[in-house]
């Protein structure tokens, strides 16, 4: 498979390491026949050679799964950080400022004690030295009580770079120590199983998501289909959780979640199908390669409508405002997970983040050209400075570029959450069935037309020169028309005391009218 590539060739490295070690084992084994008397004789080397391939594949796959999972978990730490800090900024607040330093410096007057001296063999001494050094340089020991308090905000030391980054870690540790209680009237078996379903399926999604040209666990021919199928299982667990908690709020939340997710699964799948059509493959890696190498154009510019549909349906799938009916805090206390506490709720909270994160990465992969620097070819083609961009493009691993795009997408999610309200259930469903489904159909038809008629598959081909300006420009035009489609006079009159508003309101709620 002639895919894109960068220098961070983890799969290649792992493959060579595993192969080399296996060969060493093979050579260590005695190559001569070993007589076992009446049982005949055995050639260990030969026997090993027969299973070596399978063994290599097994070890290699295990290692890659571990690596991908670790990458996902480590990079996930950034997501709640973005969520909390960015929304706090939008709300004119500061957000969490917890720092790791408060781990060995106490609170207020109460210090955490010389706990490092309790470690055996004096292995904690370095921590003591670091602590003394920090206290002497950025010390929080002051005459004034208030200054002590202020210093303990974790706003100093080297951690001023990202205060609040470790808030998620603190939350998780806290939840890990909480008591696990199951409501007496709850269906215990289902109550305990539902989180397993949700968490397991969500983590399984990441098996098919490449973090870079060489960082992926599994790459079947139809990885897109597999991933979407696994992505759609979680609502089942949500419904189980809502039903088994034996609580009215959770039940309503589970129902809403089931209805909403089934309503939005279909447009999502159709828009994904359009992606597959236009890039001519069901394989995520090939879709990315199509954007980077074959067509030199990101899918975003070819089918912006598809991108918008995918974004909306994904926001609905991961149940964030404005589509967070299942956990609407106003009427249903916490939605379908009201009765969950402790580590299970902590894990499910992390899973919510994981789903949103997966949605961001998928958008980056499908529409933003995966791990390609924006306008890479154009910049490289520039005279004189092009060489610098070329160096930059070669030096940056695809992982970094992809994650940057994904984090930007998540910041967009947070922005939406901070500026929109919650939509009512019937309105959500109506929107999904009445608008998104036809739109996705249209999008699919457009994609087929483009692929069949416009796209020429010759080697020198690609999209004709007019494709991008026409398609993208028309979308932008339509968006502007929709955006300013409000009667400005009414808005102006709104400012006045007796403002006129026609009986046909700007956007009438459809029921009881």
């Amino acid at each position, binding site marked *: 498979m002639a895919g894109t590539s960068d220098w961070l060739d983890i799969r290649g490295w792992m493959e060579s390491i595993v192969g080399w070690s296996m060969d060493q084992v093979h050579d260590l084994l005695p190559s001569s026949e070993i007589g076992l008397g009446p049982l005949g004789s055995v050639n260990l080397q030969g026997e090993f050679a027969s299973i070596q391939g399978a063994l290599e594949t097994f070890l290699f796959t295990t290692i890659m799964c571990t690596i991908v999972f670790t990458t996902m978990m480590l990079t996930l730490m950034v997501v709640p950080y973005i969520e909390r800090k960015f929304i706090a900024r939008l709300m004119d607040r500061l957000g969490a400022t917890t720092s790791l330093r408060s781990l060995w410096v106490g609170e207020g007057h109460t210090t955490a004690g010389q706990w490092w001296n309790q470690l055996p063999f004096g292995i904690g001494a370095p921590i003591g030295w670091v602590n003394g050094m920090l206290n002497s340089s950025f010390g929080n020991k002051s005459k004034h009580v208030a200054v002590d308090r202020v210093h303990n905000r974790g706003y100093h030391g080297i951690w001023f770079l990202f205060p609040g980054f470790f808030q998620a870690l603190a939350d998780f540790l806290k939840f890990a120590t909480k008591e696990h209680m199951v409501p007496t009237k709850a269906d215990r078996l289902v109550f305990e199983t539902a989180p397993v379903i949700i968490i397991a399926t969500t983590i399984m999604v990441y098996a098919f998501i490449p973090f870079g040209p060489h960082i992926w666990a599994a790459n079947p021919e139809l990885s897109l289909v597999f991933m979407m199928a696994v992505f759609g299982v979680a609502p089942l667990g949500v419904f189980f959780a809502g039903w088994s908690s034996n609580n009215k709020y959770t039940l309503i939340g589970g129902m809403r979640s089931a209805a909403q997710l089934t309503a939005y699964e279909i447009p999502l799948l159709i828009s994904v199908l359009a992606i597959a059509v236009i890039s001519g493959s069901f394989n995520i890696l090939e879709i990315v390669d199509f954007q980077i190498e074959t067509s030199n154009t990101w899918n975003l510019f070819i089918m912006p409508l598809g991108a918008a549909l995918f974004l909306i349906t994904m926001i609905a799938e991961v149940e964030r405002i404005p589509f967070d009916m299942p956990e609407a805090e106003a009427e249903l206390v916490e939605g379908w997970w009201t009765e969950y506490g402790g580590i299970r709720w902590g894990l499910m909270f992390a899973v919510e983040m994981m789903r949103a994160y997966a949605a961001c990465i998928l958008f980056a992969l499908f529409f933003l050209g995966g791990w390609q620097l924006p306008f890479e070819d154009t910049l490289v083609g520039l005279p004189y400075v092009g060489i610098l961009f070329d160096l930059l493009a070669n030096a940056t691993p695809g992982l970094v570029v992809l994650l940057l795009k994904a984090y930007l997408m998540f910041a967009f999610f947070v922005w939406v959450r901070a500026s929109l309200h919650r939509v009512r259930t019937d309105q959500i469903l109506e929107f999904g069935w009445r608008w998104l489904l036809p739109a996705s159909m249209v999008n699919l038809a457009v994609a087929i037309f483009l692929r069949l008629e416009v796209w020429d598959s010759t080697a020198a081909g690609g999209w004709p020169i007019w494709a991008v300006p026409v398609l993208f420009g028309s979308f932008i035009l339509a968006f502007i028309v929709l955006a300013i489609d409000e009667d400005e006079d009414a808005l102006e009159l709104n400012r006045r005391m*007796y403002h*006129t508003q*026609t*009986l046909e309101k700007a956007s009438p709620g459809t029921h009881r009218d």
Partner: protein
Amino acid sequence: MGKKISAAAQQKAAEELAKAISSIDGVSAELDSRSSGTQVRHTVSATSTPDSWRVLAETLAADHGVDYCSMITGIHWPEAADKTWEVVYHLMRTGVTDPAAIEGVVQPNITDSDALTGADVPMEIQISISLPDTREPMVASVQDIWVGADWNEKETWDLVGIDFEGHEGMRRVLNPHETPVGYHPLQKQHKLRYHGFEEMYDDAQGFMRKPADAGKIK
């Protein structure tokens, strides 16, 4: 200058209303000029007998456009000479009507406060009814005339213990539902906790104080 109902018009309307309702037997009403801050406001204060109260209420609602029941107060006068129970109604004439709509667009009612005369002037009426000395004081309910009186009557029964005959769905609204029957805290025989000074000040910090319901909860 600013919007304001003129005192003269209000006085005139109040006199008319007082004269009108005084004709009902058992009812005596007169103009009552009260001060509020720097202003003077003219109200109608009437006294009625329990029997004629229902008639008076219907007359007010039907003929005089009194459409708003503001408050119902029940008072317990154990040591007063003339009365033991008293119910004070505060009614209002707001003159609020549904705004008209011209071809589907609602035109808000912007009343010209200077042009208001006669039965259009906003007016407040205070009607006090003193009840005979009984264990279960009872007065006719006006729940069906002014729905706003509904929860007022519930509260009056809950706190003071004056019952309203014809009231539907009477229940405890402020006190807990399991409050013993016949306990109405605003009757004068119920004293506050630590109402006596010495009891209050012996133990100011209340270290050895036990909550009155120590055994009941937890």
